[in-house]
């Protein structure tokens, strides 16, 4: 049984023109389709990686999973219960079980709280344990992410470096002993060595406590290292999903191919060659119905901008790509 399931989940934002714009130039309300008809499932004790272009809707998806943002349509099922239909007490319980690590560690820590208060806030709010136990758990958690309590306990966020803030965010999510961790670029500011330590901690905890994790990162080498399955998104659409090994070693979708070919290598003599895709980074503002990558895809034809193939949820574990022209692309490649 899947722990989490997203059925056809979409999230749209309205882009209203200013009053002047509307009156003088007849500007219309436009729609940003930040997330469009995503199907997804996460099994318990699975780590699902999500990667995709900047602005493709990864954070929006995370917020919907954590119950912080209602989807415009579709349903988010957690243990077969619809998050959108939960009563407020159920939702509170859901929010304890599903913990989110936020992308921006400069925005997501209350500037008036000390490190210890930030991390204890969740357990205190929900009265998970007694005060003394909370203190112990928090100290242990902080030590686990490499912020020994002796040095950091009384610090305010503005007295921390970027990576230290990020680890405070991680600690404050993990201390709640969640069943599902939604981690939105949790290690983006950490250097490789500390990162390796925390990845080990995450893997260790997920083995011990058996939790599942959605791990968003733009760094494919991290995902290759930690994730079991990988979902690739492009402008709000899910374009490819599969086991991490399959997706990285054998990418099918043209966007995934471009993405993987652009991964930099740590060698100053190697310069990345510009990827073979054309066009600009864009945004899903009133997008055409078809595949949103079509306008940049070297293999696209007429049908691509008209119909979009959704990923099939019935076989969630299979390696699949949302592309019409897979065979043509394969034959071109060989």
């Amino acid at each position, binding site marked *: 049984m899947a722990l989490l399931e997203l059925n056809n989940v979409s999230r749209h934002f309205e882009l209203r023109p200013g009053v002047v714009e509307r009156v003088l130039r007849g500007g219309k309300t436009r729609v940003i389709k930040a997330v469009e008809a995503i199907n997804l499932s996460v099994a318990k004790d699975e780590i699902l990686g999500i990667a995709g272009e900047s602005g493709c809707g990864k*954070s929006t998806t995370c917020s919907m999973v954590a119950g912080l943002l209602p989807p415009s349509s579709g349903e988010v099922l957690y243990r077969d219960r619809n998050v959108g239909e939960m009563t407020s007490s159920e939702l509170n319980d859901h929010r304890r079980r599903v913990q989110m690590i936020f992308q921006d560690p400069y925005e997501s820590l209350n500037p008036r709280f000390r490190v210890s208060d930030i991390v204890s806030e969740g357990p205190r709010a929900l009265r998970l344990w007694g005060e003394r136990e909370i203190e112990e758990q928090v100290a242990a958690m902080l030590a686990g992410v490499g912020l020994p309590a002796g040095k950091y306990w009384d610090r305010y966020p503005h007295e921390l470096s*970027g990576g230290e803030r990020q680890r405070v965010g991680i600690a404050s999510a993990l201390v709640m002993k969640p069943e599902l961790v939604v981690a939105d*670029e949790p290690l983006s500011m950490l250097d490789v060595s500390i990162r390796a330590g925390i990845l080990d901690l995450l893997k260790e905890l997920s083995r011990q406590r058996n939790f599942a994790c959605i791990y968003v990162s*733009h760094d494919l080498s991290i995902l290759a290292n930690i994730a079991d399955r990988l979902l690739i998104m492009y402008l709000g659409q899910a374009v490819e999903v599969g086991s991490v090994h399959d997706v990285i070693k054998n990418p099918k979708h043209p966007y995934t191919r*471009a993405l993987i070919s*652009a991964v930099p290598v740590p060698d*100053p003599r190697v310069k*990345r060659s510009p990827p073979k895709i054309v066009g600009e980074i864009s945004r899903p503002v009133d997008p055409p119905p078809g595949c949103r990558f079509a306008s940049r895809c070297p293999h696209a034809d007429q049908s691509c901008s008209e119909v979009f193939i959704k990923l099939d949820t019935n076989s969630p574990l299979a390696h699949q790509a949302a592309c019409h022209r897979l065979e043509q692309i394969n034959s071109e490649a060989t």
Partner: protein
Amino acid sequence: MTDTNLLSVANLSVGYSTSQGVVNAVSDVSFDVRRNEVFGIAGESGCGKSTLIRALLRLLSNNGVSTATSITYEGEDVNSFSDDKFRDAILWKRISLVPQSAMNSLNPVYRVGDQVIEAIRAHRSVSRSEARERVEFLFDVVGLQPELMRSYPHEFSGGMRQRAMIAMSLALDPGLIIMDEPTTGLDVLVQEQILRRVREIRAEVSSSIILITHDIAVIAEMSDRISIMYGGKIVESATAIDLFESPFHPYTLGLKNAFPSISVMDNELISIPGTPPALIGEESGCLFEPRCPFSDATCAQILPQSHSVGEMHQVSCHRHTDVTELREKASKKSTWHC
């Protein structure tokens, strides 16, 4: 000699006073940035990279105090400038910053485009429409559609905010652009495109860049010279190629090991065990000594001096003469974790 140097910093130190004592976040750092080069700084989280540049730009928080024997920029002794004079004459106009906290630097109640326009108009006497055109151009450079100028920061994704800050830093064609973790929120394709364009623009106006990032691959690709920081000190500096092909410092060797690679998927990462130094109070000896598998008795007692080990290659390690042995051992996991 000094002519080739755009920025020279000598013996910069920063201390933060906290309830536990003074945190020596940066100690005795000296470096030069030449004209027309990309100077990379890499190092562990909390090793003082952001502090270093905040001290340089006089943006330290209230509890921080910085001292330096000299700081010269374009031949001018800026160390003697008052804070106000520095802010007026240098900041943004001649040295710009892409801060690590893109969100904190954007005012949540103003439209992003207006903020960049105002930043331009605060330093240049141009009309609003000229400034707007410039911003449109800059937004295009970082892959943001011009209509996004009308959005508020909270409507941006993390990476879009970061790109807006990169656009802002390019606005006034400064001679030096300092980028603190500019690519943390960008996927590799966008990252590639933006770094490529920043490189092009830089070539056009021949400005230099200080690039701070933990991303070894990005720093390898972009930088001409690299300094590695550990515990508030620069432990090794070299040209990018030298640093990657013949590293000397054990910490640099460890960093290379811990880099996960997409091509070899299942290899286990060799992390550097131990915790970063506390930086509180006086320390004697090499700061990396407690974590260093190669340390000996002198390391714990005497602070290593900077040794020149090649053209433009300095390292602060007592054992720099045994480097072949170190390199060989460092690639084995058993050396680090026993």
